[in-house]
């Protein structure tokens, strides 16, 4: 699948790349084509340009030759007309063109020259057959002046008879002035070559360089490395036939146009070469510009490729990231699906369990209700049945509460209510709840505290209690009768000075759990099922709730267990230490500066010292009465002890006696507190002892403080006791809003049992209307259900509070609702209700609340 996707993406990228290549390919082809066309045109133009230049020079030279011939004819004519031709010739002074005139008379082999030397035609070579204007022209030669020259001969005729032959020598130097000074800006080479001898006879001014080959045609070929036989043959053929020839050949690694241009019918040649760049000066610029265009195109192309590459890479990366995200998402979805399926399966199992668990108490309720109807006349049976119905109902209620709790935690609606608490209060309340259960099952319940440095802490004490109760009640449930259960509070190393790190351990030596069950113990809707525990009733939600709460508090929970040996739960939690918790002044005011503790258990001693460290009150430890007495004596003369803490269970002696003896040893009577296990037999006996009390183990400073305050209060004043619970609700008149007829009837009956009467309305709207119509003070309180049709309890309360009656703001409104969470209570109070009471109605609680809020009561 992934491969296919990649393939598809690659398929998308390749056409784009091909398109770019195609576009640049076309552009390149166009540029190449234009460049070639330009090159061809420039080449043609170069050839034309050079041809025209050579033609011009050819024309010039031929014109000079022609003029020379014409002039020679004129001189011949002059000689013919002259009576003394020899003297005429001798008297001639050479000029820049004609450097020598010679005359040979008919029949003579030699003649005379203007130079004074004799002249013979044998010195000249007319064999090539070249002519100018009909006059034969000789082969070139080095003349008496040391320069290249040629001669033309012209018959001297008089009256139609030849009276001699006139030879005039011309020098090539004379042509120099008619030729360009520097051909093609000095870059071109130009020579005049005698066609017959192939000697280079003139190098015009400004032309020529050392390596050009200035001797003859062969030297020209050699110097310019023209070795190709076909070129040489072609040139030879052209020179022989008097034709012009141009050919390209590199001269000194530069492309050059070489030329052999026939003058005067091929008797002499203009030869040389022109570098192409010299002819096509503009061509260089054009080539340069084309080159620049090509470079720019190439750069643009490369840039496009680079951008394309980066774009593709980026796209690819984005795709990969998306792919990875999708995979993670899919994985999570799969996990969620699996979890949902598992949850669904668990819930199905749970529903099945619940069906059984709910039906069981319901069956009991309905069954006993039937029995109740039958045995209504038998008060004993009625009481018995009612008791059983009550038990089943309570079980059903706890079942429902747990379900609601789990759903609440799992949906994240639980908000921790962090407040200050003391470990003492927490352990006391848990102890109060668990110990009776353990005692009922004949089990021993031990509470131990060690290394805890702070007992005043910040946390949600209700939820912590819930954790402890869950764990401990399970321990009680799953431990056989006569077993042992330990609750340990162990202070761990603090990670931060602001937090107390505590490990709570709950251990039992009960049935234990299988390794398989341990894996799912914290999952919701699971419950250990075996023949032993089947007898135990439970929702199977307790551990899930516990784990959720622990994690909500940022802690961890761990369990280890062995079948038949028991289980150990470890809960690690961190609690914030409240600021300024230690009230040192309390100890000063209580005049307690030093305490003597008589305790044989080392752990307990260490615990006392640790906890008392922050109070600033030193605690001396004595392991026995004798040691205590010794210490008292040692401190005589110094500041003595202001309090005695004595272990109730002294190994050898009776604690009360020890207290008396120790107190006697002290200079003044000091308060004595006995440290006793919860429910220790005989502890109360110590109470008659003056200025003494019992402190339940484990030791806590807060408990000590409370006890001291209590003892101080006892010493200063008589305790006032209040009789509670003996009075009923006689004569009170309530308005109750309740849509459920049964609940309404129950409420009505309960209140009637207490001597109060109640007027029921079916919804909030009716309640508002009824209260509005009632005379002032008619109702002592309004009992308000929350979930009702037409108008709910909150709205009804707000409406009542909003009525313009004097008692509208005063009449107590008590919420009676199945919405039993803290948020519900807050909403109720916000709506204007005085108090929130969760259903089902606890008549004792209801009575207490009514008494609290109803003045008449």
């Amino acid at each position: 699948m992934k491969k296919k996707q990649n393939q598809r993406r690659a398929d998308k990228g390749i056409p784009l790349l091909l398109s770019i290549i195609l576009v640049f390919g076309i552009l390149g082809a166009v540029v190449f084509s234009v460049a070639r066309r330009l090159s061809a045109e420039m080449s043609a133009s170069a050839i034309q340009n050079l041809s025209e230049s050579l033609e011009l020079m050819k024309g010039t030279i031929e014109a000079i030759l022609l003029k020379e011939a014409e002039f020679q004819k004129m001189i011949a004519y002059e000689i013919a007309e002259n009576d003394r031709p020899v003297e005429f010739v001798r008297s001639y002074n050479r000029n820049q063109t004609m450097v020598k005139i010679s005359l040979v008379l008919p029949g003579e082999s030699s003649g005379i020259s203007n130079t004074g030397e004799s002249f013979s035609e044998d010195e000249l070579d007319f064999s090539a057959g070249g002519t100018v204007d009909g006059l034969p022209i000789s082969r070139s030669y080095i003349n008496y002046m040391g320069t290249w020259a040629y001669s033309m001969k012209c018959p001297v005729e008089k009256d139609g008879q030849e009276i001699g032959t006139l030879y005039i020598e011309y020098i090539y130097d004379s042509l120099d002035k008619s030729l360009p000074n520097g051909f093609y800006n000095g870059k071109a080479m130009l020579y005049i070559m005698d066609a017959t001898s192939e000697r280079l006879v003139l190098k015009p001014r400004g032309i020529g360089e050392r390596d050009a080959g200035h001797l003859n045609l062969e030297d020209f070929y050699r110097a310019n490395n023209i070795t190709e036989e076909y070129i040489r043959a072609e040139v030879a053929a052209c020179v022989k036939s008097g034709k012009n020839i141009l050919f390209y050949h590199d001269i000194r690694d530069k492309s050059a146009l070489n030329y052999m241009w026939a003058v005067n019918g091929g008797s002499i040649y203009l030869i040389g070469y022109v570098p192409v760049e010299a002819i096509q000066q503009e061509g260089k610029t054009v080539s340069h510009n084309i080159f620049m265009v090509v470079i720019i195109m190439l750069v643009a192309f490369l840039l496009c490729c680079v951008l394309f590459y980066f774009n593709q890479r980026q796209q690819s990366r984005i795709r990969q990231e998306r792919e990875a995200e999708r995979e993670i998402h899919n994985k999570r979805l799969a996990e969620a699906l699996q979890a949902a399926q598992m949850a669904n399966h668990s819930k199905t199992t749970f529903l099945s369990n619940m069906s059984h668990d709910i039906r069981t108490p319901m069956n009991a309720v309905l069954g006993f209700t039937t029995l109740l109807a039958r045995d209504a006349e038998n008060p004993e049976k009625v009481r018995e049945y009612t008791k059983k119905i009550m038990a089943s109902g309570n079980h059903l209620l706890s079942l429902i509460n747990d379900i609601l709790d789990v759903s609440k935690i799992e949906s994240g609606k639980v908000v921790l209510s962090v407040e200050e608490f003391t470990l003492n209060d927490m352990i006391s309340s848990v102890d109060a709840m668990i110990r009776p259960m353990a005692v009922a099952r004949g089990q021993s319940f031990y509470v131990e505290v060690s290394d805890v440095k702070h007992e005043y802490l910040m946390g949600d004490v209700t939820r912590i209690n819930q954790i402890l109760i869950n764990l401990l009640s399970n321990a009680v449930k799953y431990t056989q009768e006569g077993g042992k259960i330990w609750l340990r509070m162990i202070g761990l190393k603090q990670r931060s000075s602001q937090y107390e790190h505590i490990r709570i351990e709950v251990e039992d030596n009960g049935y234990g759990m299988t390794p398989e069950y341990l894996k799912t113990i914290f999952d919701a809707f699971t419950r250990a099922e075996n023949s032993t525990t089947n007898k135990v009733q439970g929702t199977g939600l307790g551990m899930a709730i516990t784990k959720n709460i622990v994690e909500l508090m940022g802690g961890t929970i761990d369990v280890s267990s062995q079948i038949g040996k028991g289980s150990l739960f470890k809960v690690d939690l961190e609690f914030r230490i409240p600021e300024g918790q230690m009230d040192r002044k309390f100890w000063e005011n209580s005049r307690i500066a030093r305490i003597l503790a008589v305790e044989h258990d080392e752990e307990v001693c260490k615990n006392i010292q640790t906890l008392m460290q922050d109070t600033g009150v030193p605690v001396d430890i004595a392991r026995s009465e004798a040691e205590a007495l010794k210490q008292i004596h040692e401190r005589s003369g110094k500041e003595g002890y202001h309090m005695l803490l004595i272990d109730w269970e002294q190994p050898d002696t009776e604690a009360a006696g020890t207290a008396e003896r120790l107190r006697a040893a002290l200079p003044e009577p000091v308060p004595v507190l006995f440290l006793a296990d919860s429910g220790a037999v005989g502890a109360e006996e110590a109470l008659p002892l003056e200025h003494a009390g019992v402190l339940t183990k484990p030791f806590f400073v807060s408990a000590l403080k409370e006890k001291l305050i209590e003892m101080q209060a006892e010493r200063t004043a008589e305790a006032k006791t209040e009789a509670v619970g003996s009075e009923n609700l006689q004569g009170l008149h309530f308005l109750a809003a309740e849509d459920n007829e049964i609940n309404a009837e129950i409420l009505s009956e309960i209140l009637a049992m207490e001597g109060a009467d109640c007027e029921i309305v079916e919804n909030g709207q009716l309640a508002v209307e009824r209260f509005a119509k009632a005379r002032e003070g008619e109702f002592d309180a309004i009992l308000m259900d929350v979930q009702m049709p037409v108008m709910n309890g909150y709205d009804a309360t707000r409406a009542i509070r909003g009525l313009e009656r004097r008692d509208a703001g005063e009449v107590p409104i008590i919420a009676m609702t199945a919405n039993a969470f803290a948020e519900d209570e807050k909403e109720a109070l916000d709506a204007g209700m005085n108090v929130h009471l969760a259903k089902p109605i606890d008549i004792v609680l209801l009575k207490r609340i009514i008494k609290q809020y109803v003045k008449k009561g």
Partner: protein
Amino acid sequence: MERRRQKRGLKKIAAICLAGAAVLLLAACSGGKNEDQGIIISDSGKRMIVNLFGPMEKSNPDARNIARSAFDRTVMMAEEKLGLTVEYRTYTAENYQDKTYDDVTLDRARNNMDDLYLLNPDTIQKLGEEGRLLDLSDLDCAKNLRETVKIANCVDGKLVAIPQEVVAHGLFVNKTLFDQYDLSLPETPEDLLECCRVLKENGIETPIGANRWWLENFVFAQAYADLYNGGNTAAEIEALNQGESRYSDYMRPGFEFLQQLIDLGYIDAEAAYTYEAIEGEGPDFLAQKTPIVMAYWSAANADTAYGKPDFELQVIGFPSSRGQMPVVSMTGYAIGAEAEHLEDTKKVLEIILSDEALLLYAETNHVISPSKNVEVECIPALKPLNDRLHENVYVLGSNAGMKVEQWGNTCLIVRKLLNGATVDECMAEFDRLQEESLKE
């Protein structure tokens, strides 16, 4: 984070490209002002020219032959300073049957064809005697010349030519090969004969590579070793000029020695008669087929001659009774007495023969400068020759003070020897020349 950085990088690249494109666009759109408004005025003013006749074409600045370009560089110096152009006119004989460069030079000088000439010693003497050359004594550059140079170029008391270098000819010896055959460098003619014998016996067909120009050096070395180094030079020359002593008497031992070399097959006379200098015998010398050749000083420096041999090269003097003897000759620059551009030509000569130019020349070609103010180091191969020159031990190959021109005539007579003439016939030619000189 990474992506953002890449995006930023891409943006930078795009911005640079855009800026580049903008610059190109602006450059393309900006056109130069039409300052001339379409009117073009051509400067057709006449350029000053000095015509130089010499054996070589003008070289490009990047010419390969540095030995030659040294002269061009001094000419360039003059052109730049004077703002004129030195036009080169050249002649090279196509073959030995053609008119020689010297013949053409004579013709041209006599017909006043050029302004400045590069002349061989014989033509200097001839043209000087004919009064066709300007007296250069007044030039500033002449004041710095070595006395030897002045003597060699004076005709009838006039300094008619000045060289750019003192050309010392010597024997170029393949020292590696000599060492191989355990030969020491020859001092006397007998030594050389012995060396040639050993070399010949060891399979070297022609121990001495010769050309048609420079064999006379053997003759001069033997002929004038005593004349120039005996302390009576002026008197001996005067005796020759007066006919009191004969050139043939001086020349005979050298010619007989050459004849001996030819007869023993140490020199290939036929080949030598047709060989141009270096071009003929040079390749065999470089290929170590021929262990001995003769050449001029700077040939040991020049890339085109014997500058980079694959063996150890030593340049020594020619064998003589006084040991190794360098033969010094000078090609000089002369101005036509009736030169068309006389003043400009004198200025050119002042510059190209100034100490500055001569230093440039000497440094470029590693040659002996005619100026007494210019001294340059020589390469190790030239040390034997240089040592002799510093000892003032040498003979002149040309001397304008001798009535009979030496360099050219001896060269021609040696060619006759190569062509089969006897030593006596050659001596008769010297006698004839001396007779003619005495008539003038």
